[in-house]
């Protein structure tokens, strides 16, 4: 079953076409990668999916609902959440608070209930604390929960971003370069974590990634963007040997020689 269907999505910024007529179907329970050279429109595509940008043309169907043009918070409430390419944690909040903010759409306490401190609000706060710690244990950060987010080491910050995204109980999580800047050990751990998102929590994963080893090991399908246009889509092996992809990454000469060095 398709969880997300993007149909002919186009995004113009003035004269620049950042995303051009991209259609993409993501099956529920899959791990899918979107790759492409720098400036190919991958992050813009994510921003369109999460509602930060409204698409110029095209429709996005998520879980059977048309979400085109909805506000980001409405889309998050429906079950899409994301991480950022450049980590964007709430630096001056603690690790635990960061996760609690992510839970915003799942909490229901209204202004008056909060002011009167009704039992339902207190129960909700207790439950959300419990859930937040559960998520922190899942990404192995519970022992750091009272640290300020900014004081965490880089790898921990990446994992906290994932925990914060998980707090909104998403059906689909979009990871924007989750292993950027990591050493091989950290990359291996992150790859493992991404797999656990799907295997243990049943969340569909879409990731933007530059590390081809990561892409080729965990992706079930790969979509390749170049200059805002989808140039290829398929299984990892197909992408690896696709001449247009090799051309996009390494130039025409490499494609002609059939070099299989995309992995580098």
């Amino acid at each position, binding site marked *: 079953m398709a969880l997300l269907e993007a149909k002919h999505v186009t995004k113009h910024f003035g004269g620049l076409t950042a995303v051009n007529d991209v259609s993409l179907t993501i099956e529920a329970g899959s791990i899918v990668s979107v790759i492409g050279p720098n400036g190919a429109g991958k992050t813009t595509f994510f921003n369109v999916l999460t509602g930060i940008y409204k698409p110029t043309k095209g429709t996005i169907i998520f879980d059977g609902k048309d979400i085109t043009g909805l506000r980001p*918070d409405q889309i*998050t409430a429906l079950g899409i959440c994301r991480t950022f390419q450049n980590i964007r944690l709430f630096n001056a909040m603690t690790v635990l608070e960061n996760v609690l903010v992510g839970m*915003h759409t799942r909490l229901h306490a209204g202004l008056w209930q909060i002011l009167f401190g009704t039992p339902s609000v207190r129960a909700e706060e207790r439950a959300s604390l419990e859930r937040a710690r559960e998520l922190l244990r899942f990404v192995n950060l519970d022992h*750091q929960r009272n640290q*300020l987010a900014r004081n965490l080491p880089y790898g921990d910050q990446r994992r906290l971003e994932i925990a914060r995204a998980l707090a909104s109980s998403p059906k689909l999580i979009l990871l924007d370069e989750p292993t950027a800047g990591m050493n091989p050990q950290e990359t291996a751990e992150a790859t493992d974590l991404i797999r656990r998102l799907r295997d243990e929590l049943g969340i569909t994963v879409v990731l933007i990634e530059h590390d081809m080893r990561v892409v080729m090991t965990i992706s079930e399908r790969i979509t390749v963007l170049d200059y805002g246009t989808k140039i290829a889509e398929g299984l990892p092996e197909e992408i690896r040997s696709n001449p247009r992809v090799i051309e996009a990454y390494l130039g025409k000469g490499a494609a002609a020689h059939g070099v299989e060095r995309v992995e580098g």
Partner: protein
Amino acid sequence: MAADNRQVDQPTSLWAQLRATAGRGPAPYVLILAYAAIVSALLLLNPTTGLGTDMVVVLFLLLMLVIYRAPTMLAFKLTLGTILLAVVMPVFGVLNPFYIDVVTKAGMFAALALGLNVVVGFAGLLDLGYVAFFAVGAYLWGIFSTPQISNIVPGMEPLHGSWFWLFLAIGLAVGAFFGVLLGLPVLRLRGDYLAIVTLGLGEVIRVLATNLDRPINITNGAQGIKDIGRPPLFVEPVFQALGITISQVQEYRLYFYFLVLLVLALTVFVVHRLNDSRIGRAWTAIREDETAAIAMGIPLVRMKLLAFAVGASFAGTMGVIFSALQTFINPPTFDLLRSIGILSMVILGGMGSIPGTMLGAVIVTLLDLQLLPRIASELAALQRRGVPIPSWFDPAQYQRLLFGLLLIIMMIFRPEGLLPEDRRRQELHHDEPAPAPESKKVASVAESAQSAEG
């Protein structure tokens, strides 16, 4: 908490040792009670107006802070605080009316500063036109309780003072409404742009107050509104029963003192509840990173407007109280300097911190209304006795200069404010080595090493 524990473990200096001893067992109770007894005795036994009593009043207000920070039981803090504020201060107020007026004003500004703190400190929206909402509340009661109202609604009589109660609530609602109204056009703005536009909107309200005397006389223009109604007193029977004779003027003093105290307590309660909720967390998230906050599902428009509305609502209610207390309002009362004054209270005390904001309000109000004029009059007395002080030197005239200097010094040495919110303190000093996490870091390294082996 963590810091205190460390000091108990290994007292490093004499000060730390003293602190550790004073914070253990029954010591804090005894010390605080002694402090409270001495200050109360000084106030009640010698209630003359003068520099000495000024200092005792400062010590009295400092005592509130000490009680708040002391490592004692909550019940003890609440009981002592209530006795001091609800018994000692009013009795002192009957003996010497000057100081209770100052304390009432300080409480009023503390509530205003707390409201502004919601907008600036919690949600990070720099609002330079905050006094506009105060003005709206003040003019609301000012117009409805005086013959001004018959200019707007022909044939309508000024409302009786007993409507005041209802207008406290109406002031709240109207303040919130204006908060949303002025918040709407600035939703897309951040930082400096937001500050400039809110400054402009604040001035718009003041200019409206100045010019809305034509074609229909709504605000009575630059002359302001006088003889604003006061609520009827209902405490007389209590005093009669106690056998105390008290003038109506003094009764009103106590009345407004308690009213301001009550509204302030309510404000603290509301702000505290909100800050500890999903709404408060959403505000902090917006302050930290708007884009990330949106992506995490926070409805930006609703949360920003809520911050503006909550902040403005307190100002609206305080405006109603202010106009009834002063019985006279005019546009210059609500100028830009007043907004900046309230903002400097927030900054001085510590943005985002509830006790800090209140401390800032008390310090600024005391300096403004009590200490600077007092120093001026003391200097004048010295001058008369022949001490060569130039006649043009009047400290009260240098008030703005002094605040400016104070703020600059604060920004250099303690940018987070006198009593910062815990989080913010760490935020501004993040380049300094963090004290706590060392042991945890070692633990996590050990853990990851283990997991790598396993």
